[in-house]
């Protein structure tokens, strides 16, 4: 049986290769496929962190919702047949410099900062606790988010529809 560290390495590789595909691929559709690998890998990492509900939500909302929306936008806005550059980039030298600086700095902080690690018991499933929390302690943000979703839905419809010409 593989140890959890081996599984972690596999998931991290999938995540980071997918993210590199999003950032570097010449073809916008392969970028979307990289995003798929990346989101699946992150959802697996959530499982390793004992956050089962977040993992399932990630698959449902990100892959089932956001990624499908993104692929729709790609299909509607670019000719998918010409594989040539629909995904050109600019200023790659500055971009890579920024990437190395930010990634090195964040990794340094992540590895050498004295985080106050608590010796917590190994995680249990958290779905029941999240349900209690959303209808108890976090009820107000929950309701605000639902109002925000309605506003988002109306706003997206209004922005994306074709302008009606006044006769």
């Amino acid at each position, binding site marked *: 049986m593989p140890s959890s560290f081996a599984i972690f390495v596999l998931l991290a590789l999938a995540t980071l290769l997918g993210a590199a595909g999003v950032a570097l691929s010449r073809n916008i559709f392969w970028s979307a496929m990289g995003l798929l690998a990346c989101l699946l890998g992150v959802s697996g990492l959530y499982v390793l962190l004992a956050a089962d509900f977040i993992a399932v939500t990630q698959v449902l909302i990100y892959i089932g919702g956001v990624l499908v929306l993104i692929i*729709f936008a790609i299909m509607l806005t670019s000719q998918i047949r010409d594989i040539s550059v629909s995904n050109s980039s600019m200023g790659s030298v500055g971009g890579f410099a920024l990437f190395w600086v930010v990634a090195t700095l964040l990794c340094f902080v992540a590895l050498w900062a004295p985080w106050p690690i608590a010796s917590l018991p190994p995680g249990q499933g958290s779905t029941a606790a999240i349900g209690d929390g*959303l209808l108890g302690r976090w009820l107000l943000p929950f309701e605000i*988010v639902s109002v925000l979703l309605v506003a988002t839905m109306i706003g997206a419809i209004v922005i994306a529809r074709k302008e009606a010409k006044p006769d």
Partner: protein
Amino acid sequence: MPHLALGHFLVVAALLFGFGLLAVVTRRNAVAVLMGVELILNAANLNLVAFGRYVAGGIAGQVFSLFVIVLAAAEAAVGLAIILAIYQMLRSIDTARATTLKE
């Protein structure tokens, strides 16, 4: 084999954030810029859940990342609607060409 620790997840999240930033900065296709934003939000979520697991305990980090996921979905919907509107107007979603407000 080493045990899983907080640092492993933080490093993955840091590299994820770096790639997202790279996509946002270098891409000219507006949809790809939006994908970079999604990567950055995922990195933040991973950090929240990892800190909740190893430092804070409880479910506060997970609930917070749940709200971030909902907000990311809302942002993607509105962002893609704006991209479609720009495409109808300019027949292109090159971010370098959407300069109508500048003139």
